[in-house]
């Protein structure tokens, strides 16, 4: 077998396989109930409102509650000072406990976003679905928020919770 001509000969069937995979995936997503949209529903059909970082800072100064939607491990390493921990993957467990506290706040600002994930959107969507009226999402990762003037708290090792 001469590898280069053989590889060239296989490009068409390989492209066919890729095209079939894309087609089947698209069809499955269209037909099956567990199919996914292009974006998570919390992003494609948001119930929350986006808020600019300077406006979010002003809201927090005026008494808005700040919620960190990132994984608990990230929260333990660093967070915006005064933010409450409500990770996306623990929301079903933690929300009932935190609900009375969140209900007291006139406004809620949620943060937590990475390149591929947007937990703040999911948490904010959940809060809106539970009836909280003023729920805002401030976009950007923690570093971006820090650059925008959000005070960051980095607990010492062993003191995080």
């Amino acid at each position: 077998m001469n590898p280069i001509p053989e590889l060239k000969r296989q490009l068409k069937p390989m492209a066919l396989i890729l095209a079939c995979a894309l087609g089947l995936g698209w069809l499955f997503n269209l037909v099956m109930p567990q199919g996914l949209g292009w974006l998570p529903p919390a992003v494609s059909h948001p119930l929350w409102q986006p808020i600019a970082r300077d406006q979010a800072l002003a809201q927090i100064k005026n008494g808005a509650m700040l919620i960190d939607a990132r994984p608990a491990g990230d929260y333990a390493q660093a967070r915006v000072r005064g933010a409450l921990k409500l990770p996306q993957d623990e929301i079903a467990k933690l929300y009932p406990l935190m609900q009375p506290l969140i209900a007291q706040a006139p406004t809620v600002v949620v943060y937590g976003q990475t390149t591929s994930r947007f937990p703040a959107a999911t948490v904010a969507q959940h809060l809106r679905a539970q009836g909280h009226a003023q729920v805002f999402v401030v976009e950007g990762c923690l570093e971006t928020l820090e650059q925008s003037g959000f005070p960051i708290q980095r607990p010492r090792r062993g003191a995080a919770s």
Partner: protein
Amino acid sequence: MSAILELLSLLARLITAGVFLFAAYDKVWDPANFAASVATYDMLPLWAVHAVSVSLAWLEMLVGTLLLLGLLTRAAALWACALLVFFTGLMIYAGITGAGFDCGCFPGGGEAAAHQAGFETAIRDIIFLVPATFTVLRPGRWLRLGGDRA
């Protein structure tokens, strides 16, 4: 001698098919869970996560099915090699960066991190590359629905 090589080709093809079908089944039927695994790597923009994860799951499923049936065998085996090389690189990257999460490669992952992304998973993928490469070089003729004129 030829019969032994044919048997080895058949075994290599079926092993590769089995690996890909086993890996793809959960990803295809639970796309949301697999999309969450893909997002954990934080390498794709948010708008690409669902499209890439669904396409990848179906590519694995199709490659596994074609290898099992012996249709477009060499092309399917080339895809298997390409995917395994990519996954190996990804696992090495995860090992270097110290990612402590489940690789999302096979069922049974999740919080227990049964297949933690890292160097061990990279070695496993390199082992899987052996039968896949053998299938590319020698697709064989036994129990195949289609020929490659190899």
